[in-house]
């Protein structure tokens, strides 16, 4: 699967409180989450974002709380994939579990507004603006299965329980 979109670049250690503040997390309405995504980090983010755009960050993206509302808010807001130099571990699992693709690229040189082309099957990211290519870090096979099934809900619906190859 190939995704193309414009990069929106942020820095290191973006915590889940800044992705979706705690006061907005108590809801099952995904649109309410999306309406407040990044509110305390960049109040303009929602206006700038076009569905299908790509969120890019530095190290330790999604640190802090275990709230799954963080990847859910990003996904509902229209982010197609998150690329970061590294991810905090709970966010990493949560994103994959809810079907928000993410790729870790330790040495990316992506700038704001760069046009990106992502091959989800190979983990290869092309920076069209800069004519550069990056390769995403390898994932555990169980995670690849969860991604291929579309998230943990469809994975378990299909398989009934966890399977290791």
């Amino acid at each position: 699967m190939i995704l193309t979109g414009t990069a929106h670049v942020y820095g290191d250690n973006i915590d889940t409180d800044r992705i979706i503040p705690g006061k907005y997390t108590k809801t099952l309405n995904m649109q309410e989450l999306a309406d407040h995504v990044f509110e305390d980090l960049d109040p303009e983010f929602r206006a700038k974002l076009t569905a299908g755009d790509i969120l890019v960050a530095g190290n330790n993206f999604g640190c802090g709380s275990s709230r799954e509302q963080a990847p859910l808010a990003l996904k509902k807001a229209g982010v197609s994939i998150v690329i970061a130099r590294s991810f905090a571990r709970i966010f990493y699992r949560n994103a994959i579990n809810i079907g928000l693709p993410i790729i870790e690229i330790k040495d990316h040189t992506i700038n704001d507004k760069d046009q990106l082309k992502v091959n989800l099957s190979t983990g290869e990211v092309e920076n069209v603006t800069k004519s550069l290519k990056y390769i995403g870090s390898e994932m555990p096979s169980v995670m690849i299965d969860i991604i291929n099934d579309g998230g943990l809900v469809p994975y378990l619906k299909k398989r009934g329980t966890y399977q290791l190859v």
Partner: protein
Amino acid sequence: MGQTLVEKIISSHSGKTIQQNEIAIVNVDAVMASDTTAPLTIKSFEEMGGTQVWDSSKVVFVIDHAAPAPNERIANLHSLMRDFAKKQGIKLYDAGSGICHQLMVENGHVKPGQLVLGADSHTCTYGALGAFATGVGSTDLAAVLLTGKTWIKVPETIKIQLNGTLQPGVSAKDLILFLVGQLGIDGATYKAIEFTGEAITNLSLDSRLTIANMVIEMGAKAGFVDTIGLELPYEFEPIKADEDAKYESVYAFDVSQLEPQVAIPHSPDNVKPISEVEGSMIQQAFLGSCTNGRLEDLHEAANILKGKRVHPEVRFMIAAASTEVYLQALQDGTAEILTRAGATFLPSGCGPCVGTHLGVPGNDEGIISSTNRNFRGRMGNRNSNVYLSSPAVVAASALFGKITNPKKLLKEAVK
């Protein structure tokens, strides 16, 4: 080759000997979800086709993050949790009972050597008991409700040796803030941490819980406090890492000269010794949370505030970690000392720490707080400045309206 604690516990729960960086499917001993995460857990569980949880005796729900309900929307989410818990025969602690992590420990839902998952990042707190406990999201937790299992990558372990004796007025919170400052907010990402050394093994259970609670602030998957010297209200088998276990790194610190520590805005790893921040003005002081809302913490504050009154321009709020803690503080006079000193007791819960309920600060205000995170907006207002500290520093700062070293105020303990 010898095994670390995390390798031992994951091995015993996966039915085979397993080492760091391998992936295992493990049986889970207990799970917990709060009112921030349980509604999404229920939704995911039902979408997975779940009808009956794998073992209702191993599931705990707690209504603590916005409790009692501040509005209609949240009240209805609480009702959803109650209905599900009733139908499934799950233990539910309702609003006011206390903070999930305190209740899990206090009521024996987690024990040494167990493997426990919670849909809350501070689930790592149970590492104080020598359990492997880690935070997951709602859908991961729903999968445990369905299968009784999860998958896990066995983390490498960082060993932290803490030597020496803490000075009076310096507590476990200062220790863990110091370490978060040293290792950084991602200094232990994906790793487990083992804490050992005399500065640790002399600590009470309350203090050990404070240490384990904040390993997530270094990104850690789990933390283990050495069980030497640990006292629990029941018999338990101590669990020890092998002598020849392999560690990713080993740190040693002598903490004898450590002064109180403060994390300044806006990150828990932005830690300074108190001498560098003394005098910063505060308008609100909060004592509570899963980090520091226990009886020992209330005692520390009462020790400083007995017979005194907090600064007239400071709002001082306390939320005991549980009803049980509150009752003990009532019985031994601590609650009266603190109330007479100007404290307002809030319902036992998480609200002020996470900005969901009560005690939201105003623009440009300074807050000294015994909690675990001071990310921008954490307490509900992005234009406020949250400083993290020990309960003693919270109390001393409340007294003067500015960040104050409690050392000069120390008297004999209340109890």
